[in-house]
């Protein structure tokens, strides 16, 4: 569809010629010269004729407009990301709990104290909380990764408008006519 023509005319200044110098004086008693053959008549060649029709430009103009995410998509991706962060926070809690329990029973030197059920409880808690921390870190990381993938996969499309520019140049008396057109 051709919607608009925007024309820009350029009037190329007429070709100016300088004054020709005066002809040289005729030579006296010229010898009769042999007759010369007349110049050849130009033949019209359709292949070498100038084409003034509008020609397409080598590159189109593409206008991209991204669509907005809908609310449900934002809530879904954000919810999964928030769940991942929450699971990660729970993992941190268990990590710190495990660390505290481990620190309570990790001596720097001989304690001279017996290994009692209290120490064993700390030992078990350190192990148990460490496992829970790993599980929650894993779940949280998976949720964050899923939200990132979902964010990319569910990215809304874009509206593309392609404009095909054309141009034309036509000689005019004393100049040229340049025109440019866009169709979309």
């Amino acid at each position, binding site marked *: 569809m051709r919607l608009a023509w925007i024309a820009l005319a350029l009037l190329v200044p007429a070709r100016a010629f300088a004054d020709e110098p005066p002809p040289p004086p005729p030579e006296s008693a010229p010898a009769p010269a042999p007759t010369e053959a007349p110049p050849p008549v130009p033949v019209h060649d359709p292949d070498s004729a100038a084409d003034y029709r509008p020609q397409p430009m080598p590159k189109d103009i593409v206008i991209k407009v991204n669509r907005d995410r809908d609310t449900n998509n934002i809530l879904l991706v954000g919810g999964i990301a928030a769940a991942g962060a929450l699971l990660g926070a729970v993992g*941190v809690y268990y*990590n*710190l709990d*495990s*660390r505290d*329990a*481990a*620190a309570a*029973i*990790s*001596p720097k*030197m*001989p*304690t*001279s*104290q*017996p*290994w*009692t*059920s209290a*120490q*064993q409880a*700390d*030992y078990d808690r*350190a*192990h148990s*909380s*460490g496992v829970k*921390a790993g599980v929650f870190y894993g779940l949280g990381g998976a949720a964050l990764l899923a939200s990132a993938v979902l964010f990319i996969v569910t990215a809304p499309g874009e509206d593309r408008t392609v404009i095909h520019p054309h141009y034309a140049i036509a000689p005019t008396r004393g100049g040229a006519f340049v025109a440019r057109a866009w169709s979309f």
Partner: protein
Amino acid sequence: MRAWMLIALAACSPDIPSGSYECGPNAACPTGQACDGPTNTCVISSIATAFACDPGVEHDDNTPATGTKIPQLACVSNVFQTAGCLAANDGQDWWQLTAPTGCVAVEAKVIVSYPVAFEPLALALTDTTTGAQVATDTACKNPPPGGEDSRCITQTITSGDDYALAVKPLGMGDDCDGTCNFNRYTLSVQLDTP
């Protein structure tokens, strides 16, 4: 700050070097460690050795009549201290004590201390002159340092009488289901005026 967070989050596994803890009741030790018999400490399982009584402290002392004699103590004496050992399935060790004569009144203070790792021990004081058991142990007022337990007898005794002191397993089942039904001990005896 970031480094601190990494360290804080990373160190969540107990790091318990070999020999850090005394063995707990029933020879309890951290995972991967075992109770070393000679030292009562938790060590790497591969280097733990079995419990064995020192031959120098084992005697033929399984009856009051054959009990090991405690040197004669004065009416007010210093603490007499000796080591003993109850091997597996050794039911009791007997010690003979003679109350000094010429005392207005005599009180015997007896303490047996032993590692908590193995079978708990008990005391009993018998007047062999009359054949009556005159005292059994109670909890001590001053508990021993960590890794040990103790039982005490504080009993007025009759001047000039012979007594037999039994050190025997408590028999409450804290013997690793029968695999640590032994223990070594330190026996302390002191006479004083009540």
